[in-house]
């Protein structure tokens, strides 16, 4: 399997490999990404392996072994790959096989064969076995031998982690065509839909996962993505949502059954409680109430209860708002304002919860589009976003030589200058301050770039200036004191542009009334601006060239 497949024989899929869940997807001949269910019918495939008398159980079947066979069940291992033991956080594994130090890497001591001996299995080997099962599921579904994949990784995955994952994939019979980052895959999943329109926008991808939350701020300019900021949080996560439910039901149980004891104090009871609470959480994303029922939860006492969604939202409200605050913090990290954000993509299984999107919506202006199942009818299932993006990317590069992919992804990428501020034209009727600014090429646009606008002219004879501006968030204080004293003051904030420097002026003479003007500007690599102003239908126009500044670029190689 080590020989590289020639592109002609390649069957590539997209894989999203998470700590809690993994998924697999392929792109159909019509160019639509489809998520593949494994043989249990799961599209969200738990990243868990378990061994019972030498038999390997995977995914959902392995997950139920967390109750009876926790010691031989390996879970939440993705973030351990390519790391040394000291740098990992083993907390998620408390209820499964514990990670141990093994040479320079992390391993697990499990009984993975029929014999009664414990073997040391490294995290790389576990990953290989997991990926192999995923590969087999995809191959069975497609009826073809899958041998290549595009795998999504978090933005903070370093090269060692990628190399370790690549090696594990290779041993599982998968050639990794490319690693793409999870948030970018999510943006691609949305942009690749036929109805999607490519616009210049700032997008936040907020992934609320099981063991971690990842926020990424992405500038999308004409379908090219630039990562502006990322934030990773390991304290605000889906497990906390489970925990809120676990505490709630545990307390109810203690109240009702004095003899039962606290189910959180016994490992097996705790495992049962956790599994059921995750199921309850999922049910509450879809329905407004859910029932909790565990046979012999603790001390042989069964427990049945129900909970409605609003109760759950109160229990977990702190976590939801903590998550929403992470988004704002990420925006502020790069000195942007919530007003600059045009779209928020909610990803990760926990984003299925309607409260996540409403908590986020509270902190962002109404103009911000929130893409989540509860706020948008066309939203894609948040759990499937990265894997869909990976499947689309896999289909795009499937036919390329590996060498081509490597060359394209390296030097071509890094050396791309981006504009600092938006460039556009100012429509003025007297002095500059009363002008209306129209963006043509937005800030943070990779160069070379071009853009044109069509303007409808109302009066003949007009004056156009290309100006360069900076967006400013204005915060005028509210005019009246708020009636209720401790209510937070509603402040009115809006985005406005301030002209920072005029680049050039141009004049068009003798225009007809109501004429339309077309303005086209192209900005080259060296910051040379080419501008053309033309009345629609006219043969001639004004054109001009602005040379780039002579100073060297920031941080050029």
């Amino acid at each position: 399997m080590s020989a590289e497949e020639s592109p002609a024989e390649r069957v590539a899929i997209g894989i999203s490999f998470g700590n809690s869940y993994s998924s697999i997807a392929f792109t159909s001949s019509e160019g639509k990404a489809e998520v593949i269910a494994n043989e249990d019918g799961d599209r969200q495939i738990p990243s868990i392996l378990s061994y019972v008398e030498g038999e390997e159980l995977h995914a959902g079947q392995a997950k139920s072994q967390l109750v009876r066979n926790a010691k031989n069940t390996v879970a939440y291992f993705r973030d351990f790959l390519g790391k040394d033991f000291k740098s990992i956080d083993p907390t998620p594994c408390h209820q499964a096989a514990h990670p141990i130090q093994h040479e320079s890497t992390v391993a697990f001591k499990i009984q993975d064969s029929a014999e009664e001996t414990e073997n040391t299995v490294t995290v790389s080997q576990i990953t290989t076995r997991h990926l192999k099962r995923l590969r087999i599921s995809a191959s069975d579904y497609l009826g073809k031998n899958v041998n290549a994949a595009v795998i999504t990784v978090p933005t903070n995955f370093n090269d060692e982690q990628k190399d370790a994952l690549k090696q594990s994939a290779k041993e599982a019979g998968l050639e990794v065509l490319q690693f793409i980052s999870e948030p970018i895959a999510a943006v691609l999943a949305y942009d690749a839909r036929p109805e999607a329109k490519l616009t210049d926008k700032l997008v936040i991808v907020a992934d609320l996962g099981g063991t971690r939350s990842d926020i990424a701020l992405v500038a999308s300019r004409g379908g090219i993505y630039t990562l502006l900021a990322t934030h990773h949080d390991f304290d605000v996560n889906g497990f906390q949502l489970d925990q809120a439910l676990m505490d709630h039901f545990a307390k109810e149980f203690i109240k009702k059954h004095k003899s039962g004891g606290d189910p959180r104090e016994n490992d097996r009871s705790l495992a049962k409680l956790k599994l059921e609470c995750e199921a309850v959480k999922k049910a509450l994303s879809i329905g407004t109430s859910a029932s909790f029922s565990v046979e012999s939860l603790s001390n042989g006492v069964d427990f049945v209860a129900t909970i409605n969604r609003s109760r759950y939202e109160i229990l977990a409200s702190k976590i939801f708002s903590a998550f929403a605050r992470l988004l704002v913090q990420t925006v502020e990290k790069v000195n942007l304002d919530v007003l600059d954000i045009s779209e928020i993509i909610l990803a990760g299984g926990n984003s299925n919860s309607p409260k996540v999107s409403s908590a986020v919506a509270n902190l962002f202006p109404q103009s911000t589009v929130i893409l989540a199942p509860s706020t948008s009818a066309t939203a894609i299932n948040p759990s499937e976003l990265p894997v869909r993006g990976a499947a689309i990317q896999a289909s795009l590069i499937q036919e390329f030589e590996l060498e081509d992919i490597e060359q394209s992804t390296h030097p071509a990428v890094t050396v791309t200058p981006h504009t600092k501020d938006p460039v556009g034209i100012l429509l003025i009727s007297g002095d500059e301050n009363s002008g209306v600014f129209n963006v043509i090429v937005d800030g943070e646009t990779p160069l070379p770039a071009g853009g044109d606008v069509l303007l409808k002219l109302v009066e003949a004879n007009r004056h156009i200036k290309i100006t360069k501006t900076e967006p400013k968030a204005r915060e005028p204080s509210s005019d009246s004191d708020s009636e209720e004293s401790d209510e937070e003051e509603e402040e009115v904030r809006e985005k406005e542009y301030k002209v920072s420097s005029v680049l050039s002026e141009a004049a068009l003479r003798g225009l007809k009334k109501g004429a339309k003007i077309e303005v086209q500007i192209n900005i080259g690599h060296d910051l040379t601006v080419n501008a053309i102003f033309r009345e629609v239908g006219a043969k001639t126009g004004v054109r001009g060239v602005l040379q780039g500044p002579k100073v060297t670029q920031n941080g050029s190689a």
Partner: protein
Amino acid sequence: PVLPEGWAGEKDFKPIGHLSPSTDRNIEPVGPHFLAHARRKRHKRTFSEDDRI
């Protein structure tokens, strides 16, 4: 909008300023538009040359 009286420029175009320096950033090697960008860059083509092919 009106043209102020006495406004003049060579061929009606008057360059005044420069763009402020750009920042080098990584673009993500993902998606069809990136692949087109990479193709242009590797063959040192411009947009219009690329369109012709």
